C-alpha cells in the first residue's frame, strides 16, 4: 500500500503531518545511519534504545498496545498511516522481542503482578528481552527442546542451553521455553518462563554471524534458579503461550515484510543508478541488470497487493494464517533476491571486509563510496531470513498439510 494513494480526510491529514514532523524532528542523522547499517533484524543496540525512549516520551512507545498499558489508541486508519509513515521515515529497528512478543503474551497469560511489573519497563525502553526458544538440538523442530526446569519448592532449577538468541548480549531479561516434564507428546510438558539475565548460573557465548557481526548468542544455564512467580501461564502448558506468540509474530510480519520489500527494491534501484555498466552507461540501464531488477520489482508489486488483501481480510476478522504463510514464502524469496542483486550491483566492491566501518561511529574509514558499505553484509546476514522463523521447507510442510490432509 502506498500512502500517496490513500485518500485522507482533513483530520487524517493533520495526523499524518504530526507523525511526519515527529520523524523530521527526532530522527537524527546517527539514528538514520543506524537504520541504514542494519544488516540482520535490529539496529545497533544503543541507537535502538535511544529511539525507544524517544518514542516513549512522545506517547508512541507501543502504539498498538491497549491504551491501559500505554498504547496510543489509534483508529485503524491512524494505525495504517502511522505504519506507512514509519516505513517511509525508516527509524532504527528496535529490538522488539519485549514490546512485540513478550508483552502481548504477558497481557494475555500474565498475572496482574506480572503485568504491572514488566509492561511499564518494556514500553519505557528500560527492559530489553531476549527470546529463548531454539536449542542446539532443536531448531525447526522446536518442540523437541530439552532445557530442563525442575520444580524445587517455589523455584525452578534450570539446566541446559539456548542458542541463536539474537542480541541476548543486550538483554536484561529473557522469555524462554523449558521442559518441566516428559509427557506423551513432546509439545506437552513445556513451561514458559520469564527469567532475569543476571541470574547466577547464566553464561552468554557470542556467536559471530556470517556478516561478521555479533547478532547471535548461545546461553548456558547451570543450576539457574527462577521463582515460580516468573512462570507465564500454566505449568507444562507453555506451548500454548508459544503458539499464541507465534501467531502474533506472523501477523506483524506480513505488513512489515511487504513494506520492507518495497524499501529494499528502491534501495537496489538507487545503488544501480550510482553504479556504471563499464561501457559508459549506468548499470540501471544495462538490459541484464534491469531485467532482473524489473522481475523482482514486479514481484514486490504483487506481494504488496496480496499483503493488503491479507491485512484487510484480517481486519474483517478472518484468521490470516494460511494466506499469510503462503505470502511469506514469496516475500522472503524476493527479499533475498533483492539483497543478492544489490551485492551484484556493486561488483568488486562487494569484496572488502568492512565490519569495523559499519558502526554508527565507525572504527575505521570505509573503503569505496558510501553505497558499497552495506550490500555484502546485508546479503550474507539475510540468508538467515529463511532459517529464523521456520525454513521454507517447514512452511511448505505446514501449507501442504492445510491443502492436502
Amino acid at each position, binding site marked *: 500500500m502506498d500512502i500517496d494513494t490513500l485518500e485522507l480526510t482533513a483530520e487524517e491529514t493533520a495526523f499524518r503531518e504530526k507523525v511526519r514532523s515527529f520523524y523530521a524532528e527526532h530522527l537524527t542523522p546517527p539514528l538514520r545511519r543506524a537504520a541504514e547499517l542494519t544488516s540482520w533484524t535490529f539496529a545497533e543496540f544503543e541507537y535502538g534504545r535511544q529511539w525507544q525512549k524517544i518514542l516513549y516520551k512522545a506517547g508512541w512507545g507501543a502504539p498498538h498496545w491497549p491504551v491501559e498499558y500505554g498504547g496510543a489508541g489509534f483508529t485503524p486508519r491512524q494505525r495504517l498511516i502511522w505504519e506507512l509513515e514509519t516505513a517511509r521515515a525508516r527509524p532504527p529497528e528496535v529490538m522488539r522481542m519485549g514490546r512485540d512478543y513478550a508483552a502481548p503474551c504477558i497481557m494475555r497469560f500474565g498475572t496482574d503482578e506480572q503485568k504491572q511489573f514488566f509492561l511499564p519497563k518494556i514500553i519505557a525502553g528500560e527492559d530489553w528481552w531476549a527470546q529463548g526458544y531454539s536449542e542446539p538440538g532443536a531448531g525447526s523442530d522446536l518442540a523437541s527442546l530439552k532445557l530442563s526446569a525442575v520444580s524445587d519448592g517455589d523455584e525452578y532449577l534450570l539446566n541446559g542451553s539456548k542458542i541463536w538468541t539474537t542480541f541476548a548480549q543486550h538483554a536484561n531479561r529473557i522469555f524462554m521455553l523449558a521442559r518441566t516434564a516428559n509427557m506423551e507428546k513432546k509439545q506437552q510438558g513445556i513451561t514458559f518462563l520469564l527469567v532475569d539475565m543476571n541470574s547466577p548460573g547464566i553464561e552468554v557465548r557470542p556467536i559471530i554471524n556470517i556478516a561478521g557481526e555479533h547478532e547471535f548468542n548461545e546461553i548456558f544455564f547451570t543450576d539457574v534458579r527462577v521463582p515460580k512467580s516468573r512462570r507465564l501461564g500454566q505449568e507444562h502448558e507453555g506451548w500454548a503461550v508459544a503458539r499464541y506468540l507465534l501467531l502474533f509474530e506472523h501477523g506483524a510480519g506480513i505488513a512489515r515484510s511487504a513494506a520492507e520489500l518495497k524499501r529494499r527494491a528502491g534501495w537496489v534501484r538507487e545503488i544501480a543508478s550510482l553504479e556504471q555498466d563499464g561501457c559508459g552507461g549506468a548499470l540501471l540501464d544495462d538490459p541484464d541488470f534491469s531485467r532482473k531488477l524489473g522481475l523482482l520489482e514486479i514481484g514486490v508489486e*504483487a506481494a504488496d497487493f*496480496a499483503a493488503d488483501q491479507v491485512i484487510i481480510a484480517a481486519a474483517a476478522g478472518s484468521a490470516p494464517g494460511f494466506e499469510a504463510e*503462503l505470502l511469506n514464502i514469496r516475500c522472503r524469496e524476493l527479499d533475498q533476491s533483492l539483497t543478492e542483486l544489490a551485492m551484484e550491483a556493486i561488483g568488486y566492491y562487494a569484496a572488502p571486509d568492512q565490519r569495523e566501518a559499519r558502526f554508527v561511529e565507525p572504527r575505521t574509514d570505509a573503503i569505496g563510496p558510501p553505497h558499497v558499505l552495506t550490500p555484502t553484509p546485508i546479503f550474507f546476514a539475510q540468508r538467515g531470513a529463511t532459517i529464523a522463523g521456520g525454513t521454507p*521447507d517447514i512452511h511448505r*510442510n505446514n501449507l501442504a498439510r492445510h491443502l492436502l490432509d
Partner: protein
Amino acid sequence: MRYAWTEEQTLLRGALERLFAERFSFPDRSKQPNQYVAQAAWRELAQLGVLGLPFEEQFGGSEGGALDTALVMEALGRGLVPAPYIPSIVIGGGFLRYAGPSALKAELIPRLIAGDLHLALAFTEAQSRFNPANVATSAVRRGDRYILSGQKIVAYNAPIAGFLFVTARTGGAHTDLDGVSLFLVSVDAAGLEVRSYETADEYSAADIRLNGVEVAVGHLIGEEGKAIDLIERVLDEAIVAACAEAVGAMAALNARCVEHVRTRVAFGQTLSKFQALRHRIVDMHVAYEQAGALTLKAALSLSAAPAHRARIVSACKAQVCQEAAFVGKAAVQLHGAIGVTDELDVGRYFKRIMLFQHVFGGADYHLRRFLALSR
C-alpha cells in the same frame, strides 16, 4: 482471486460456475466441435446479461467495472469455456465505448449484448511481434473512403466476426506511434480475404489479407493517425481480462492436482504422501495467489492515469505469464502421461495457458514496458 467481492459479484460468480459446470464441462463438451460449444456458451452468457456488463445502460448494458470483467473472465478460464468474450466484448466493445461514433454504437452495441454480433481486432502483422505501433498495412484517403492494403495475422475471433477493427498506417514511418489509425471493416467488404483456422487453445482466428479494401470515413474509429493511445488502453483492458482467464485456469489446475495427488496411488501410497509433490502443490498455490493479486491490482488500475495503468498492467502480464506457465507445466507433469494427451482437461488448460503467454505481448515485452514506465 482474493478480494472483498460485493454480494452481487459473488452471486454472478456462482451463477457462472454452475452454468459452466452443468453445461460445458469436460469431457462431455469435447464431443462437440469447439465452435458449437462457443456458440452455445455465448447464448447462455447473453441470457445471463453478462455480454452487456461493461456497456452503458442506454444500450441495454449494466455499466459494470473492470472487476466485473475480471470476474467473468476468471470463471470462463476456470470452466475452460472457449467463449470469445475478449475480442467481442472487451476489445470490440471497448473501442465502441471509448471512440465509437454514436450511430455505430446505437447500431452495434445492442446486437453485441444480444449475442447476435461478434467482433475482432486485426492488428498483428508478420513482422510486428508485440509492438502495436509496428504497422505496415496502409490506409490511403480517397474522397470519403480509405483504401486499406496489407496483411494481418492471427486475428482472434475473426472467423465469426461481423466486423473487424483493423489498424492501418495513415502516416509516419513503419514503427512510429503517430500515424496509426483504426478502422471498422465489415467482413463482407470487397477485397478482404480471411483464412480461418482453429487455434491450439480452442478458439478461432484468421490470417487476413486486405487487397485495397474500401472503408467509409465514418468507420474511422478515433482520430486519424492518433489511434495508439486508444489501442493501448483497450489492449490493457484485454490484458487484464486475459490474465483473469489464466488465473481461472490456474485455479482449476490446482484443484485438479490436489484431487489427483489425493487419489492416485504409486509405490503403495497416495501421491499426496510424497514431500516433493506436496511442496510443488504449495508452490502452485503461491503462484496462483500472486497471479490473482496482480490481476486484481491491474484491474483496479485500469481507470488510473495511462502511465500508471500501463505500468501495473504490464507488471501483471509479465508476472501472470510466468506464474501460469509454472502452474501449467507442473500440473501436466504431476498427472503423468495422461497429462500430455487430449483426453484430460489438464492438457487443454495447459495449452490455453501456454498460448496466453504471447497474446497482447509476451512477458519480456511487458517487462520492458514496465521498466520504461518505472523511471
